[in-house]
């Protein structure tokens, strides 16, 4: 498992986490290149379909990044995202799929280091967990 490189798909909100990810770059915080960022306007605009599709089609982990509670640029999108993720995790959990592959993280525009640390930790955790079984089930 040592050379397994997990693939993380991240959905980041425009205002906080995407900007935080930029700040990680501006301040040259280093983190593993396992992540692919998809930019959306709000964490409340991440459909469960995206998350599930990512996991089934080949991602080992999915990261949702949004503004801290109370900070959502669109008032309450992050609270709605949180519920959505809770429901999704509940469903997957009940079906014997480990929910730890879905991460919800509040990262503000000024938390570049937190973004870098989050990706680092998530990559390491996923390495320990091994490849996502879900994607393999659908191979021929």
């Amino acid at each position, binding site marked *: 498992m040592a050379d397994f490189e997990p693939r993380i798909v991240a959905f980041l909100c425009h205002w906080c986490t995407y900007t935080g990810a930029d700040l990680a770059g501006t301040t040259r915080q280093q983190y*593993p290149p396992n992540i692919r960022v998809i930019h959306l306007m709000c964490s409340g605009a991440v459909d469960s379909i995206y998350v599930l599709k990512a996991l089934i089609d080949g991602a080992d982990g999915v990261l949702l990044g949004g503004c801290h509670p109370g900070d959502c640029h669109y*008032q309450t999108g992050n609270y709605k995202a949180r519920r959505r993720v809770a429901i999704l995790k509940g469903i997957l959990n009940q079906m014997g799929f480990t929910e730890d592959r879905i991460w919800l993280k509040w990262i503000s525009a000024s938390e570049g280091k937190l973004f870098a640390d989050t990706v680092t930790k998530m990559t390491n955790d996923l390495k320990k967990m091994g490849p996502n079984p879900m994607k393999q089930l659908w191979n021929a």
Partner: protein
Amino acid sequence: MAQGKIKGDKSSALVVGAGIAGMQSALLLAEMGRKVFLLEQGPAIGGYFPLLDKTFPTNSCGVCFMSPTPPAFCPIYECHLHDNIELLPYSEVKKVEGAAGDFKVSIVRKPRCVDPKRCTLCEACIKVCPVEVEREFGGGLERRKAIYLPYPQAIPHSLVIDPKTCTRCGECVKVCAPGAIDLDMKEEEEAIGVGAILLGFGFEPFWAQKKGEYGFGRHENVLTSIQFERLISTSSPTQGFPIRVSDGKKMERIAFIQCVGSRDPSCGQDHCSTICCMYATKQAMIAKERDPGLNVTFFYMDIRPMGKDYERYYERAKAEYGIEYIRSAISTVKELQQTKNLLITYVKEDGAFEEREFDSVVLSVGFTPPQNIKDLAFGMGLRLNPQGFCETDEFHPAKTSVNGIFVGGAFRGPRDIPETVVEGSSAAAAVASFLGPNSLLISTQEYPAEGALSNEVPKIGVFICHCGGELKESLSIPELIEGTKQLGEVSHVEEMGLACLPEDLNQIKMKIGEQGINRIVIAGCTHREIRKTMEEMAKGMGFNPYLIEYANIREQCAFVHRDLPKLATEKAMALIRMSVERARRIQPIRKGNQKVERKGLVVGGGVAGMTAALRMAEQGYGVYLIEKEKELGGNLKNSFYTLKGSDPQSLLKDLIQKVKDQPSIRSYLETEVIGFEKKNGHYQTKIRRPNGEEILDHGALVFATGGREVTPKEYLFGQDPRVITQRQLEKMIHLKDAGLKEIRSAVMIQCVGSRDEEHPYCSRICCGHAVKNALKLKEQDPSVQVYVLYRDVRTYGFYETYYHEARGKGVIFIRYDLEKKPKIAVENGRLRVSLFDPAMGSQVTLPADRLILSAGVEPNDHLDLAKIFDVDLNPDGFFMEANPKSAPLDSVDRGKFFCGLCHSPNGIEDAISQGNAAAARAGAILAKETVEEKAYLAYVIKRLCCGCGLCVTTCPYGARVLNEEEVKAEVVDALCQGCGNCVVACRNAASQQRNFEKGLNLTVLNEAID
């Protein structure tokens, strides 16, 4: 130096100081159609705002809302991007000549030695710079080079050279690929012409060394609150984990010492700095969140959280965070030699001395006026108050002593962010009124018409920029070029050196023309850096700017995976693939416009409402002023003198007269609102007047529906005629009531109907009210005994000096606790008040010829109104703002504003500021013929919609409505902010968002996984 030609004219304004107030004023004036010069003495705009990570009372950031039309981006970026604002960073005002309405201002532009237009922030120069010094940002806890970025988000977004420390070794010049550095840059003088000047000089933190007994500067672990703020910021080196400065260790006990350089005549600071109780409490809470094991102790005199929702915050700090507050006076802070711990000796309320040891001590420093503006103020003829802040008239809070020069924010006195935003807005209103109805168009730029692009087959041009070679260190550009060529529908791929500079932009332009490219992908830095440049270029050639995609291979790839070139290149390729995939599917967006009904409607004709109506009318807009009573005036009718000595009755007369004289205002008395409808772009309000109903169309709505004095339910009020409220006493004094002679001993009780279970908030004005009436009683007869029974004295700001005066004149202040309220008894026909006096440590009994209750403020009953207008109330019944810090007067959906007592308890001066501010914020909407819609609007595929209403419930802006007839959802384009939440609320694909369609996102996802 050569002097350039004069910029600006009589209709423009100069805002000096780009802190929160200055930025707010500039943004609103710009939105109101004014040309604004925004001058800042530092190399970047923002003031103290960039230092703040979390703000009270929400412990959130959220200042990105602070724009005239939230939600928008951070105010710093907004100012940077606004067409009507010209930034003058790193500049100083040298001289002001001319007169109100026609000023000529000489300014000096200091040399920053780095050209912001060419600097790409690759930071190659920082690596080679040999000079390291203390970083000013955050109070000098960190270090920086002589060439540096003031803070990561700084605008102008460019490095700067500090001339004081630069050794001119020239190493940086050698490594700068875009050639942005010029060590020989010289100071330049410039003159601008403006009609009005707005001063937002802000404040300076008190110089803590002045209070030698606290040991700042001598003891390593004594910090100022500015330093502690930096320490707990998530962008600090420890990511906000509070550590001990001397050894970097985790701490167990820290102390906050309040009022350092506040309420302290001994160091020339007799005013209360107003916000230190709150900011320190916030710092303590954040520190405890980061390190739950930390014990925090406050040493304080009175705790003063008197803003909206602040009392709850303070209660939470005690109850939920376990923060300890000790009412005391500090005698000394000693450093223990071995441990560098600090030993605080303090005197408790009962006079007993105690000692406690701490790992670190934070000094909650107060605010002083900016020190370096005295000469300038003198030159302009500006009167400062005794504390050195800008002097203003109580009833004209935005005007200075000089005609045509205005003031906002902390330069007028210490204040928190919500008030600063209000004042910045208020000052903008005053400037707009002064300059008269506007003439300038919002955007003067004309662009060629766009070609029809939507139905063409995508021809994608990909430009891969290596940022002056900087990205080549970790990315293989040839590999990216090769890979990109393989992608479908990509018709052109090209390597660029510096895509943001004119040379390369011209090349892109040429290629678009030559090859018939109809979609562009820029792979390079984040869209945040390059978007504006690219969009300008596109608009200039009739290319729809929404057909440009950005692949962020710099900030989110090359810069963060430096040592992994292979994997980084692979990732960059994926990012380009994703962007190309988006580019294949996006459609051009032409933003719609909605006609603005350029009238305002104000509900409530008290001081705030009349003020708002006047300011809107003075900007040239028609105003409907609705009042339910027979006459205008509201609570102002019952106010007879103020603490600062102004005459509210003459203000009342003046306001009513001005409203009558103003032809643009139509007043409706004895009128109530019975209906309200949101149209696309404007509002429709239905009113009932004595002689019938009427429908009014308007584009902005201001609530000024007021509040009232709480009717006390205790202390024999209503049972004994000698128990009265402060208002009743004020009226007696005003009317020279015969009963006054009976008063030999007056007892005032504070916090009646405030800070209790029924009204769990501070009413803010009662302490001042009590001091005001106490002083009046003493003035009429110095031998009268006046007792004020209080819980905390909250004479914030300059009111503190009157509190001081009252004590000097023999008014006796005795503290009580909520658990031990004063008891009232009638003995031999006389009222007697008994309570425990903590200073004496015993029970005292006071005779009371009159018992005066400082009754709190409560809002009028707004439930019906809130329902009609679709706005929210907070748990206390006041109107709820979109964001307590940054949009303190705004409702969530743009266009509705709150001011006066319906918003929060406040005095006349604050109500005027709020009325002004509401008018300015409304003016930002009314200034335009049409309102431009957001780009990424939601839309509905009606065939798929089953009208379940989930999108309607989820939309925070009221931009979703249900068409009852069709049983289908619709989007109110003018209100949609483009968050996409409704898209996800929808179970199928009926609800979509332009260029963020579900299907589009899924195809991008495919590329991310591949």
